């Protein structure tokens, strides 16, 4: 318990240290754009692949479960759309990104720590945590909602194609379902979750990487801790946000 409190306290101090005045604003802005390419564009193929199959599976499983003749076939489209928008795209895709982006961030910063590159930044008078981590967080907060919207579009399209090709849900029914009882607030809710998760998948692995102590073995351990802890926090905050906003 005391160890958890220590980690939470140190994480809070770490987050506070990110917000010192930047040494040179223009360099930070350039870093943000670079990180947006790394985090967003670099993850697009993985997001597209995951979303397409996720949408296909949701559609076919929904059709499989909705066997009651009282339930119209277009309900599959409603279920697929809302499942993808509210839960699967923001949560599952961010969990996938926590694995890809989180391990990348923790190992990059951890390696910089054990090879004294972070010390070199400090010696120069640069706020190392701010310079290395803040652009990643800002980039993720900007680019992740875009990635999640792309995921929603691909997921819904994937469901449509899978339903039509397998003959489980005809196109006309699926499209009718997509347009039925659509609540725009669901997208807003998904974006709120995405921004919170984007902060988690960058700051938590960065924290573990930044406080790496030792060598290659410890860098690997930091990377694992970063991914595991950020994944757990995503699930916890998924519940908290759902309870706060939807309940």
């Amino acid at each position: 318990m005391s160890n958890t409190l220590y980690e939470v306290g140190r994480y809070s101090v770490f987050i506070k240290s990110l917000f010192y005045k930047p040494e040179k604003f223009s360099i930070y802005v350039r870093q943000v754009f670079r990180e947006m390419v790394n985090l967003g564009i670099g993850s697009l193929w993985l997001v597209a692949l995951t979303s397409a199959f996720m949408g296909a599976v949701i559609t076919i499983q929904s059709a499989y479960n909705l066997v009651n003749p009282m339930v119209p076939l277009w309900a599959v489209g409603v279920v697929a759309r809302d499942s993808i928008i509210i839960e699967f795209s923001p949560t599952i895709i961010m969990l996938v990104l926590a694995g890809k982006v989180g391990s990348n961030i923790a190992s990059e910063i951890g390696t910089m720590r054990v090879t004294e590159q972070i010390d070199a930044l400090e010696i120069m008078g640069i706020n190392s945590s701010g310079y290395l981590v803040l652009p990643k967080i800002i980039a993720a907060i900007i680019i992740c909602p875009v990635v999640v919207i792309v995921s929603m579009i691909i997921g819904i399209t994937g469901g449509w194609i899978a339903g039509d090709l397998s003959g489980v849900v005809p196109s006309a029914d699926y499209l009718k379902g997509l347009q039925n009882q659509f609540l725009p607030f669901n997208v807003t809710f998904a974006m709120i979750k995405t921004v919170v998760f984007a902060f988690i998948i960058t700051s938590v692995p960065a924290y573990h990487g930044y406080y790496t102590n030792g060598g290659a073995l410890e860098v690997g351990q930091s990377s694992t801790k970063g991914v595991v802890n950020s994944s757990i926090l995503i699930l916890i905050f998924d519940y908290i946000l759902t309870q706060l906003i939807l309940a």
Partner: protein
Amino acid sequence: MIEVDNISKTFGDKQVLEGVSCVFEQGKINLIIGGSGQGKTVLMKCVVGLFEVDKGRILYDGRNFSEMSFGERKPIRQEIGMLFQGGALFDSLTVEQNVTFPLSMFTNMSAAEKRDRANFCLQRVNLENVNKLLPSAISGGMKKRVAIARAIAMNPKYLFCDEPNSGLDPKTSILIDELIKEITEEYNITTIINTHDMNTVMSIGEKIIFIYKGKKYWEGSSDDIMRSTNQELNDFVFASRWMKAVKQHF
């Protein structure tokens, strides 16, 4: 000049430095020597502010560094150049970008001015045609030289070198030592080297501080070492058969 005044540092229950006082003089090569685990790296890291001291003061030309906040230390940090044991070059940047990095962060130089300064610094450490290479594509000795070029890019007043010869062949070690000596004399800077390389001690050491069990045990010049009767110092410096022979000859 850097004055270290009665500093102590503990990690948990372990006292790593105890009441260390010394002066690192300007325009001279100041060496911190001692065996592994005796506290010399901790001393250097305390002096540059990577570790906070528990007690005592560190004065950079009279400015009390140990009592300054992170923001207050920035102007002094920009006067410091440091050569790390492994070079600590930024992996994702090319050699030229590594050298121009502090210039990009702290000056308003144009790209052409930064490139000129990088070329000057790289030529100063006898490196040419490596500007576009990544650190992973150059040898250990070249990395050390690039790190020196980066350290002198901002015209530092204080140069810190942590084990500059570790992992280098004897010829490259001598080259690095000579380079540090030339730069110290040329720019009249305060150079502090942390080493246990006896060749460095005897060839370029002008002021030597011997750290043993976290305390300053001895202070003097390389000539004084030969005449020293300090048992711990002699056990450390003349541990090898070659150094024993040198002492007998002396």
